[in-house]
């Protein structure tokens, strides 16, 4: 046994190093396994002044535009575009402009029919200020909330007006793959809120059960339960 002991020791060190290598490998492959949910490339708000920025996003009724490679059934999932991971500048007034192409599907909870947390307590719906949208007319919400025990909380919730169910698909949208896709004419929703100091991360989500056309509790599955579609993160950071 003694003559083996140095061999065992070297083997032991190799085994432990190899083991931690395996752990790292497993971690990296879970991180890159996009089928389990993923974080798309960061989309930065466009700075429009020293303390102002604009975030342009759209809400799409399917994933053809932003997830062109997605397999069935993901390709049919509703999705925010062009990303769900946003960077915002700190201590700024952020103007969010959402082009909303989807039709209305209603809410579980009336709480989310109010415009909350925006500057002035209103949002502009096709240039018309409103502080509430009727339950049945809501397609999605854009709701920013804080992480647990956040010291600089942000809570913003804006219901997005749905397009008419029978609206003709007459608007061209250029997809990530360069193809043109036809959608109804979007509603433009615009609102503003303040960001706090840099270095804080928030999450946002949609609170309309738009994940599936089956009834409760199905609406929050699929795209609603997978990051990269109807849920994401917001980093307040200097860039």
């Amino acid at each position: 046994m003694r003559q083996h002991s140095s061999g065992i020791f070297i083997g032991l060190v190799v085994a432990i190093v190899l083991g931690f290598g395996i752990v790292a490998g497993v971690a990296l492959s879970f991180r890159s396994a996009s089928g389990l949910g993923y974080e798309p490339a960061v989309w930065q708000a466009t700075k429009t002044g020293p303390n102002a920025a604009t975030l342009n996003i759209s809400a799409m009724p399917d994933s053809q535009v932003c997830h062109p490679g997605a397999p069935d059934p993901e390709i049919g999932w509703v999705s925010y575009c062009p990303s769900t991971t946003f960077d915002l500048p700190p201590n700024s007034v952020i103007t969010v402009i959402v082009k909303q192409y989807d039709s209305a599907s209603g809410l579980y909870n009336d709480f989310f029919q109010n415009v909350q947390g925006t500057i002035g307590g209103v949002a502009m719906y096709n240039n018309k200020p409103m502080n509430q949208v009727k339950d049945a007319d809501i397609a999605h919400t854009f709701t920013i909330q804080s992480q647990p025990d956040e010291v600089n909380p942000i809570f913003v919730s804006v219901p997005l007006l749905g397009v008419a169910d029978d609206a003709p698909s007459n608007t061209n949208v250029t997809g990530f793959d360069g193809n043109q896709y036809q959608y109804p004419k979007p509603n433009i929703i615009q609102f503003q809120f303040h960001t706090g100091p840099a270095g804080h991360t928030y999450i946002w989500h949609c609170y309309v059960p738009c994940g599936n056309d089956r009834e409760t509790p199905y609406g929050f599955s699929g795209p609603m339960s997978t990051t990269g579609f109807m849920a994401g993160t917001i980093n307040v950071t200097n860039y």
Partner: protein
Amino acid sequence: MSSTTSTTVAEVKHPTLFNRLVPSVVSGIVLGIIGAVIAGVLINKITTALSPDSVPNDDAVTVAAYLGWLLFFFIGIGAFNGIIKWGFNRHEATPAEELELAGKDQGLWRYFRYTTDHKVVGMQYLFTVLVLFFLGSMGAFMIRLEQSRPGAIFFDPSTYNTIVGMHGMLMIATTIVMVSGPFGNFILPIMIGARDMAFPRLNALSYWLLFSAIPIFLSTLFLGGFPTGWTGYAPLSVQELTPGMDAYCFLILVFATSTTVAAMNIVTTVLVMRTKGMTWGRLPIFVWGVVLSVILSLTAFPSFIVSQIMVLMDRVFNTSFFLAASGGSGWLYEHLFWFMGHPEVYVIALPAMAAAAEVTAVFSRKPLFGYRVMVSGLIGICVLSVLVWGHHLYTSGSENALAAPYMLDTELISIPTGLFFLGMIGTLWRGKIWVTVPLLFVVGMLVNFVIGGITGIYLADLPTDEILHGGMFVTAHFHFTLVGSMVFGFFAGFYYWFPKMVGKRLNPMLGTLHFWLFEVGFVGTFGALFYAGLQGEPRWSANVAPPFATANTIASLFAVLIAASVFVGAYNVIYTLVRGEPADADEWGAKTLEWTVPTPVPLENFEGELPVVTSLPYNYGASLPEPVTSAAEITGAITQAPMQTQGQE
């Protein structure tokens, strides 16, 4: 059954490559994949045609693919071979055919076939358990990595939830079979003096069902994962749109079937295959532990299967067992699940505790302190544990009055558990204690089990559970019982029986290192999580909230030690397999029957006649000269020794 006639049979056979591969696990996998594709495509076409808007039912397709995989895998591996030949009362299999099925003269390749020899099945279980533990521990390290700092630092929440669920399910399934599978199959029949299990082909079936469930479960990674954790609570599991959830449900169906088959086999074996003189009062305690465990699993697992069939019905056929909006109830799932879920932890515990008792007697060189008391303790745990499940629903909002009987029953379990501790301490007390790696793991088990058991009191008692339920305290508690106690018990058995099973000696230095890294890392990790739980950290946190950051960072640092221990353990196994020293037939000086047969154990275990048993296998000190105390006192003390009672049958 005689071993002399069969040598001629082997000489006739010259297996070609094809004969080796068909039937074997290779042909099983190939055919299984083909079957899965055929079934999946078929159901895809059918559901698309039936659907009004031409959309296939993804859940139906997934379930069909799994069924196709199962059926064709078992055709490919040869599970159905011989039905025509030997079935329908045409003729019995000849002894030579039986030995062929048992893997005679097939070398290492017999481990990759539908081999009926209980020792082959035991080894298959052993290495499967080790691999699954390795995979499951990877999940654990991913969890500790993510929780090492606040925020979603490494994985997005859906990935994290899938990792938690996979870690939990892999570990639960593995711990259920970890002792009854390898040692219950390899050691138990020899211990009771049998040549094989009662139903050798069912034995092979139980293992290969477990094997075939593994790819089913891992397929969840490619089907979107599942968000529910290992408990799979409905209606979240019904809501989940991705077919990754079906992998979870189907794993349980296959796994629970496998365990049920194995359980029936073990019970029958112990009932009818004990050798002459092996009365119930002379059974080694390990046999008691395994038998009680599998009896418990026979009562518990049907509701596990039922619950998942109902979830699959809800998912595939849009029934509404668990959907409140359509008249169902989530409480139904919780009850069905925990009716399995709590007895199941005792399914895990009983054989591991019994294995530890076996090890303790051997390394103290003393008979078990109160064999009958300890067995009564195990029986008491087995009986009481059937009715404790409701404590998982203390905070479910059900009528409070329901909680009292569950609470009483849960607390009562501490009494038989106390008997077990009395036996363990009494066995060690004044023994000639040989501190070996198996005994170290027993000591670790006892220490962790005390912590796990006592923290269980707080969770069993209503007023304290009110502040702990669903929190990290629960996580830490059940890791202390399941990992700290039962997995340590498994490793005690592993280091103890490995020389008999594999024929080589595990390196004691590496084993000691494995133990200390594991124990220190373990107590540190979950000790810190107890604190986090007391501060209110919820379970399943993809994102650790800032108040719990310190405790979680400490836990993650200690988890590095656990990781190192896993690699040391794995290295020890691989090193031993490659260049370990050959082990003696009676490696430790134990007296149970498995140590009386040669190593490696011959095909039908006992060469020649089966042994006749005349006493308990713990008659240490029986031949001692007059001990230090007066003879009257010693005889007074041992008059209740069971080895002297219990008449012949």
